């Protein structure tokens, strides 16, 4: 493949994905019509509250939404694979090899009864034909890469002997063992302290520079996406309510939910005490979602149509779009005005 077209290649293409969990209490529509594309080497941030479907979106790329979850519509293409029709054996081929994941909690996502070395070498041996010594050498190389000193000693240690930040570094080493095309980071720093969080985020950005993989960063912290991501998807109740470049989202937010989120976080550099503007109400009950726009019950500018129908997509430029009736209305008015001016001329 020509090197210069590499950055333009589409790595992830999700179209109209619908995914439900069939629980005893009823169908939980975790994802409703989610579409986005990602280029190779791109960093996408997915933000939203708990239960908004941000993790499920990323997990479905790896086939990790097992029973009772079921993909009931749409297509997912990843790196030339059609995820919809893949079997478990085929998934095993790509997991850890082409796409890897770092979970939120490094305390529970490592196996406590195996040494760190054992767990890193397992991935290498599974996906490459390296022998034991080569796998060990690669494991040492990886631990050095993620900034762990005395890697030979660490390989023989068990997860409980390491601190939280160390364990998350080990998780990253495992995830990067086969140089995946896509790294999914599911709230990788939520369980860590701020100074350790800064270390891990810095490390992730360094590694992206070196290895050129794409990253999906799942988080609820707007600060993290502001500094790391190129594109941001804001999710609410299983939908992408707003999608755009980082600057679009922070400096020109169009959806009421995005605006609310940005307003509701306290700023460290604020000189005077400004009262926060919270988003009123509580997150939607995914078992009984409202009929129209899911955000309507909490929206200050809710209109009648919002309660009845789901709004269509409004595009502001090539990438920036929202799903909101207000934007539809504004666009329609602008179009009507432009049409009128044209007619006047």
């Amino acid at each position, binding site marked *: 493949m020509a090197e210069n077209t590499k950055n333009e290649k589409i790595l992830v293409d999700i179209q109209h994905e619908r995914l439900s969990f069939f629980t005893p209490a009823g169908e939980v529509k975790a994802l409703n019509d989610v579409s986005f594309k990602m280029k190779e080497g791109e960093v996408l941030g997915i933000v939203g*509250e*708990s239960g908004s479907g941000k993790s499920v979106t990323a997990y479905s790329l790896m086939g990790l939404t097992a029973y009772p979850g079921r993909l009931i519509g749409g297509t997912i293409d990843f790196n030339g694979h059609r995820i919809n029709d893949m079997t478990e054996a085929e998934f095993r081929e790509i997991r850890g090899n082409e796409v890897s994941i770092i979970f939120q909690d490094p305390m529970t996502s490592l196996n406590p009864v195996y040494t760190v070395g054992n767990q890193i070498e397992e991935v290498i041996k599974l996906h490459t034909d390296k022998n034991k010594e080569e796998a060990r050498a690669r494991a040492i190389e990886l631990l050095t890469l993620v900034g762990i000193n005395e890697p030979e000693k660490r390989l023989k240690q068990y997860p409980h002997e390491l*601190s939280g*930040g*160390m364990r998350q570094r080990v998780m990253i080493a495992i995830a990067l063992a086969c140089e995946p095309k896509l790294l999914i980071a599911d709230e990788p720093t939520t369980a860590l*302290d*701020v*100074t*350790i*969080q*800064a*270390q891990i*985020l*810095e490390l992730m950005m360094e590694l992206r520079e070196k290895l050129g993989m794409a990253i999906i960063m799942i988080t*609820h*912290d*707007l*600060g*993290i996406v*502001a*500094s790391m991501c190129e594109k941001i998807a804001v999710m609410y109740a299983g939908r992408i309510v707003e999608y755009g470049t*980082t*600057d679009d989202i*922070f*400096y020109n937010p169009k959806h009421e939910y995005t605006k*609310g*989120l*940005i307003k*509701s*976080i*306290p*700023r*460290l*550099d*604020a*000189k005077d*005490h400004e*009262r*926060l*503007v*919270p*988003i*009123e109400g*509580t*997150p939607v009950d995914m078992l009984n979602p409202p009929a129209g726009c899911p955000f309507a019950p909490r929206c200050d500018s809710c209109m009648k149509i919002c309660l009845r129908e789901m709004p269509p997509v409004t595009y502001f430029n090539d990438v920036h779009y929202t799903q909101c009736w207000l934007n539809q209305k504004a666009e329609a008015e602008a179009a009507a005005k432009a049409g009128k001016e044209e007619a006047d001329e």
Partner: protein
Amino acid sequence: MSNYLLEVEHLQKHFPIKGGGFGNKKVVQALDDLTFGIKKGETLGMVGESGCGKTTAGRTILRLHEPTGGKIIYDGETLFDKDNKIAVNMLPYRKKMQIVFQDPYASLDPRMTVGDIVGEPIDIHHLCSSKQERYDRIIGLLERVGLNSEHANRYPHEFSGGQRQRVGIARALAVNPEFIVCDEPISALDVSIQAQVINMFEDLQEQMGLTYLFIAHDLSVVKHISDRIVVMYLGRMVELADSYELTMHSMHPYTRSLVSAIPIADPVQARKSKRIILEGDVPSPIDPPSGCRFRTRCPYADERCAAEVPEFKEVTSGHYVACHHLDKVK
């Protein structure tokens, strides 16, 4: 006579390590030499990483943990004084000093209705003489925190995290306290709910003239709600100042890195700002470093830091720092 509502002096809490065998005198030095005062109606914020002793500090002040040393003075009355062997009965003071816990999932009894949870402190302190009065008071409290009367007969599992935290706050308010320790009350909540709860804390403070000790690890939240902030590291105070002063003109190298490590929700500024990345992890409080406890991660550390514990002294008006190398840091 000081004008502080609550004062602590050299407060210390060491936890013995269990199961160490004979002659094992090891302790976890969770809290050492905590000295500060909180004025009436003020909010003092307390930040630090996990294991820095901030939760221990909150609980030791309320004597939920018995201190192993130091002094606690509340409203001019000594509640605890190790040297003079004073340890008063806390029951009457529980009416004045309350706490809101971190985890709204674990701090409410799942087998009690919300009405009973909020009513329990009223019963303990015999604050209501009739059932009707008790009921009215409970409903009043629930309404005060944004819930309503129908919630009183429900159980905690029927509520969302934000609502549960409101129940926890209503329980703390049930005895009409003057002083509340808020132990990470919002860290378990979703972003959009956090702002609601923060605003509620501010409203309640205004309406009831409350004094808060607000503990959190999120510096931007603490900065927002507090008048003054104290920064903790490994059981000791490293810096104490007015909240704007502390975040904008921090002096201690630890506070500086803490401030710079906070991700800024503004892309242009985030790209410009340079993070001060600290090396390594927080050492164990069982065997903390000698001298300055921060020295193992401090870029300015030298022999003096290992030998002497830096004095916690006032550098500019109201701004206290514990560091040997303030001139270098500037």
